[in-house]
């Protein structure tokens, strides 16, 4: 207590330890490589913390169980990988529309389909944004190290509680299985956010009324508050209402709350951007190799900077737009064939040239590969 401690931890283990610190007391899941350690460790750790662990019959049911537990006021999580993430999409949309806080971990592996279960990938980045149907609010984070995974997990619960929105943590196999030293913050240095409880008694409670913040109050089931939770469009009472006016109000509120509260979730890191001619936009594990490549390029006089997005969705548009004005070329290294590059191109809108360095063979980038990509922009051999 009171001391920072340093521990060797696996990425999946960092998710578990941080979730417990954040107050997670319910996990429902169905094991799948490379996320299985999360379920395995929580099966042991949750009961010790007074929580509940349940292995469900499949990923669909485990997503449903996590949402149900959250409705009772318990911070809840589920974890999976590609094929399971696909199955969770329907209920993920339910959580978005009914505004139930829940954290979903997707330790990405090579896809589509069964793909390569033990190989890392960043192929689910667009699915994390648009995997379920309809316009919908969602947050997705892609930490770049085991230590950052610990931090991001606590923040994921905070965002989810504060904005009543599902938060996806996108690891990849390498970070999930890799062990690194993690600096565990002191308990008093960790800030936890909780959902806003009801300000009125059960009789007057309107479960989906906007109190001016865009985020309604949330009463825990089982405490005397009775209300309807439905995946149909609904009015302030929670009961279905298909009128055009109600639908428009609800959709604009749930999307609008994300735009209004960017400060709650936006998380980016910039390095060496002041004089940069070339900017790397990075996320997830390739950022480690990119950092080494940038250092080498800098030593050789190339003016390269880095804009790293930890919270990928909603995308930090304004920040990138500012940076894009000052550079001539933007490079996006990704373990897919250019998914986030599409978003970068949209935001940059011609202010700079955008290209990608892509790896899609189930292995991670070596620093040399990203360095070679940077040098190419500078005209090859120097």
């Amino acid at each position: 207590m009171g001391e920072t401690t340093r521990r060797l931890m696996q990425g999946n283990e960092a998710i578990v330890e941080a979730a417990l610190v954040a107050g997670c007391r319910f996990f429902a899941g169905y094991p799948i490589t490379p996320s299985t350690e999360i379920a395995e460790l929580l099966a042991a750790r949750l009961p010790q913390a007074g929580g509940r662990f349940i292995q469900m019959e499949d990923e669909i049911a485990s997503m449903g169980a996590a949402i149900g537990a959250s409705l009772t006021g318990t911070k809840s999580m589920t974890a999976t990988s590609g094929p399971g993430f696909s199955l969770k999409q329907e209920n993920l949309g339910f959580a978005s529309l009914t505004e139930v806080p829940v954290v979903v971990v997707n330790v990405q592996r090579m896809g589509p389909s069964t793909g390569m279960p033990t190989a890392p990938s960043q192929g689910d980045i667009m699915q994390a944004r648009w995997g379920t149907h309809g316009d919908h609010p969602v947050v997705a984070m892609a930490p770049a190290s085991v230590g950052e995974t610990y931090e991001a997990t606590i923040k994921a619960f905070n965002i989810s509680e504060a904005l009543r929105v599902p938060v996806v943590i996108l690891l990849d196999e390498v970070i999930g299985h890799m062990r690194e030293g993690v600096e565990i913050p002191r308990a008093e240095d960790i800030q936890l956010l909780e959902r806003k409880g009801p300000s009125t008694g059960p009789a007057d409670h309107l479960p989906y009324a906007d109190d001016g913040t865009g985020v309604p109050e949330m009463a825990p089931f089982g405490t005397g508050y009775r209300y309807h939770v439905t995946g149909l469009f609904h009015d302030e009472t929670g009961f279905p209402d298909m009128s055009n006016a109600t639908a428009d109000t609800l959709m604009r509120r749930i999307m609008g709350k994300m735009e209004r509260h960017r400060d709650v979730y936006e998380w980016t890191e910039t390095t060496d951007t002041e004089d940069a001619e070339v900017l790397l936009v990075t996320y997830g594990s390739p950022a480690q190799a990119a950092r080494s490549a940038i250092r080498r390029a800098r030593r050789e006089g190339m003016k390269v900077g880095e804009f790293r997005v930890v919270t990928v969705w909603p995308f930090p548009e304004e920040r990138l737009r500012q940076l894009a004005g000052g550079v001539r070329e933007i490079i996006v290294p990704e373990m897919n064939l250019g998914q986030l590059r599409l978003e970068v191109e949209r935001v940059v809108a011609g202010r700079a040239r955008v290209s990608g360095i892509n790896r899609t063979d189930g292995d991670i980038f070596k620093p040399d590969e990203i360095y070679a990509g940077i040098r190419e922009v500078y005209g090859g051999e120097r």
Partner: protein
Amino acid sequence: MQTQLRLAGTGGQGQILAGIILADAAVTYDVKYATQSQSYGPESRGGASRADVVISDEPVDYPKVIEADLLLCMSQEAYDKYAKDTTEDGIILVDSTLVPSYCNEDPRVVACPITGVARDELGRIIVANVVALGLIVELTDIVSTEAVRKAVAARVPPGTQEANLRAFERGRSLINECLTPGKTSGE
């Protein structure tokens, strides 16, 4: 300074646990940076198994081994596959009990009957990985002896600490019985 270590052999030998112990020694007890990663085969027993450990004074940029400064081979397959990915002045620690065929002229090779010692002297073949750790500590100065000793005690299954610490000390003394066939000026 950054050092890359690769521990390779067969599933069930404890290569991954040995890798975790080295990384834990560096991170927790020596306060350095380290990453440990592994290759997973579909088999948990009997297939090839490999742990990569990178230990550095600065944050590690690439968690896998590109060229090993130290390679431990506890199977013929591991030697055949990885010996070529070892630095010119690196060390190839060969378990001569399990690797019958290795290059006699290679000055990097250090050959020791690791598994034989674990089986015949210590009575537990399962501690061979920790015997290897004792040798690694003597062959390099990447991690301190005390840090590895603490990490062994912290990471091995409960009830096996004593046997493993004995294996670690035996590994350290075993260095005097190793062969370096490629070195021209032999003992």
